[in-house]
């Protein structure tokens, strides 16, 4: 009876999942594979600040159509705020200005746009060479700038080599005294580009700072990237600030020009801006819908694509957890691998996504190893349970911080991602491992640790296949199939693979 119900349920789930999947994949022609080269992106800027109960005015640079990218669609989400978009006097940047009579507490405003790559647009012919706004050097600074421009003029033939030589000098770890004076202590890349544009402008070459973003598949916290634009008499040409070469990657989208910050606030505090970028799958799907001549608003209204980009990015990861869980069930109930904690390997696998496999395994092993060594020392003190767990947690956090500092000093930037390991899970792993070690011997402890790592590594290898991520996100109904499979596993009563060898003695000498 029970079994009948189970089979009926699995059958129902399978049919439902397959039907929906088939409808979307074959009738609506949703893309079955991830697009290799995106042409459309969603970009979202979030502005947060704290109001002082005063009249408030927030301005934010927003991108404009450029030679390479077109803003196809944009919207501003700002309840209760007045909104105006203006063009700035200098540089001709676009700016959104939000204002309100009174605002208190934490406020969030959003700017969202859809960006399409378009090489068709003719370059808007700039009028007379614009007057660039550049840092006005005075006194000693002026002398320094002039001496630098004189030197590099000497050593260059054309504008490309001029810019290359200048950037090369600026990027040296020990620039000469003139540049050191101009740059100040520990200059950021933005500062270097700013100084470069100033020096060039002094030399009669119009130059300006551009701040933009890199259009990626997925980045929930995209950094701003500065680069240099120099006017060659006809066009503004972009230069990479690190190499000084006249080519920047084709996925760099300019956001605004000039050294000013992205946002500005009057009447509030703690202004923060965050950028999120995601490749737009929806476009392909919308196109698919249009192609089929079908409009199915219900399906699209209640799909994951209707969520904000930030949330979509979260679900891209969350939807992988069921895949890991299924894998874990197979490993434990069919193969018989022992792991610490039921879901620990999945969480570790998710952390591996950030650290990458080998680094992840190395970091995880060293953390657990060190933690275990210290835990054994604590064992001698005979601490009570909760304080003991708390002290292991503290030690784990300290170890993580220590490892980060150490690997950073060694120049291994990957090591920084150790901070992404779930520390409570690490603590519980260390605690369980030490108990198994004590009670059932070191062999058993190591076996379970290796089992956990093995499962985590396999889960990592599967969830990082871009197909898998794409399939579960575009076709979440496939998870119904996964659920059906997991339910069936729940009634799998056969032997586990590793039990076979355990019971071998039963057969060998069975008299």
């Amino acid at each position: 009876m029970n079994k009948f119900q189970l089979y009926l349920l699995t059958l129902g789930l399978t049919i439902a999942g397959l039907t929906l999947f088939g409808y979307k994949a074959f009738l609506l022609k949703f893309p079955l594979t991830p697009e290799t080269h995106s042409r459309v992106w969603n970009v979202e800027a979030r502005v947060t600040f704290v109001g002082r109960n005063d009249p408030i005015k927030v301005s934010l640079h927003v991108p404009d159509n450029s030679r390479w990218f077109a803003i196809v669609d944009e919207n501003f989400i700002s309840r209760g705020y007045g909104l105006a978009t203006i063009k700035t006097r200098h540089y001709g940047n676009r700016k959104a200005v939000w204002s309100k009579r009174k605002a208190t507490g934490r406020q969030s405003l959003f700017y969202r746009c859809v960006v399409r790559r378009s090489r068709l647009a003719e370059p808007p012919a700039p009028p007379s060479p614009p007057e660039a706004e550049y840092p006005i050097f005075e006194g000693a600074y002026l002398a320094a700038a002039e001496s630098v421009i004189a030197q590099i003029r000497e050593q260059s033939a054309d504008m490309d080599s001029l810019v290359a030589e200048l950037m090369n000098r600026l990027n040296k770890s020990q620039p000469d005294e003139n540049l050191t004076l101009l740059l100040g202590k520990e200059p950021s890349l933005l500062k270097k580009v700013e100084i470069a544009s100033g020096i060039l402008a002094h030399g009669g070459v119009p130059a300006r700072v551009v701040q933009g973003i890199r259009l990626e598949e997925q980045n929930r916290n995209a950094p701003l990237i500065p680069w240099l634009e120099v006017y060659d008499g006809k066009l503004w040409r972009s230069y990479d600030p690190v190499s000084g070469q006249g080519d920047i990657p084709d996925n760099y989208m300019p956001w605004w020009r000039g050294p000013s910050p992205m946002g500005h606030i009057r009447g509030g505090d703690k202004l923060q801006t965050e950028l999120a970028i995601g490749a737009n799958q929806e476009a392909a799907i919308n196109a698919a819908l249009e192609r089929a001549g079908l409009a199915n608003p219900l399906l699209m209204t209640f799909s994951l694509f209707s969520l904000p980009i930030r949330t979509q990015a979260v679900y891209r990861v969350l939807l992988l957890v069921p895949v890991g869980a299924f894998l874990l069930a197979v490993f434990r109930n069919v193969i018989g691998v022992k792991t610490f904690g039921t879901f620990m390997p999945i969480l570790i696998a998710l952390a591996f996504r950030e650290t990458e496999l080998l680094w992840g395994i190395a970091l995880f092993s060293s953390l657990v190893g060190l933690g275990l060594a210290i835990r054994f020392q604590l064992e001698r003190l005979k601490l009570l349970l909760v304080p003991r767990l708390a002290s292991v947690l503290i030690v784990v956090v300290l170890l993580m911080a220590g490892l980060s500092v150490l690997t950073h000093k060694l120049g291994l930037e990957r090591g920084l991602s150790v901070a992404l390991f779930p520390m409570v899970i690490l603590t519980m792993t260390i605690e369980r491992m030490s108990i198994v070690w004590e009670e059932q011997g070191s062999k058993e402890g190591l076996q379970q640790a290796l089992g956990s790592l093995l499962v985590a590594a396999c889960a990592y290898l599967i969830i990082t296949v871009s197909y898998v991520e794409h399939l579960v996100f575009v076709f979440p109904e496939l998870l119904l199939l996964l659920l059906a499979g997991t339910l069936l596993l729940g009634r799998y009563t056969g032997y586990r693979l590793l039990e076979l060898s355990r019971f071998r003695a039963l057969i060998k000498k069975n008299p």
Partner: protein
Amino acid sequence: MFRLAKQLCGIGALGLNRRNADYTLKYNQRRLYPLVDDKLRTKQLAEEAGMAVPELYGVVEAAHQIRHWSDLLKGRSDFVVKPSRGSGGEGILVISGRLKDMYRVTNGELASQSELDYHVLNILSGIYSLGGLSDRALVEYRVQCDPVFDSVTYHGVPDIRIVVFLGVPVMAMVRLPTRMSRGKANLHQGAVGAGIDMAKGTTLTGVWKNNIVTEHPDTGMRLTHLKVPKWEHLLQLASRCYELTGLGYQGVDLVLDRDRGPLILELNARPGLNIQIANHAGLLPRLEVVEQLRERLHSAEDRVAFSQQRFSAVNQ
């Protein structure tokens, strides 16, 4: 690999998945688990039913009772302190005598009163209990081992594990401590398990670390053909545990005391599967027979007789 699986199937070896899905999940109701997870409750239940258990001298439930517990020990020089929810024999302290103010622990060390107090505090904080729940400490009678297993025991107390399904004892083994298990009768920790013929109560070959052995690894003495005294009495006790707890599939751990005979040590709602290796036999055929004929078996006597008649090693 498939051949191996087929062979195992042929002799009816019970796997972990099957044990969980078809036996413990089906026949053991979760609400009954606390009865066996807490040794104090098991003991109280058994005493009410008039079944023999090691006599309870006292319980320490909270740290402030520590002051009174030395009164509890007054005049006693021979006792066991154990956690009520302990697992795998952890946290058990066996005191076999006194030397002035000190207690003699069976591993040969001496412990002062304050060391004993500290051990009890640890038990109360849940150091030995699964899941770290706060626990109680039991002080009870120290079992005087029946000499029958003396030649095949290295320190510690051997115990007898009987798997009872719906009240019918289906398989049994005796667990003998070794040097490796450090005096504990737990197969995971390296104790030897020797199967027992259900009909006669004589030992079969043993299992040690998943290998079949016929001699004790430390004493070198023969494990086989030892006659377990009071075998029927042991089976009776085990069988009656079904009515005691209501758990359909359980492992009953018993000891043989020199003076008091068979005593119930503890019950287990998820007994391990190694007992099959110790007995050279799979559990499945026996479990299936019991499942089919359960209607016919009413009293404990019926069930023991059924078990002895059906599950003799000679029949297999």
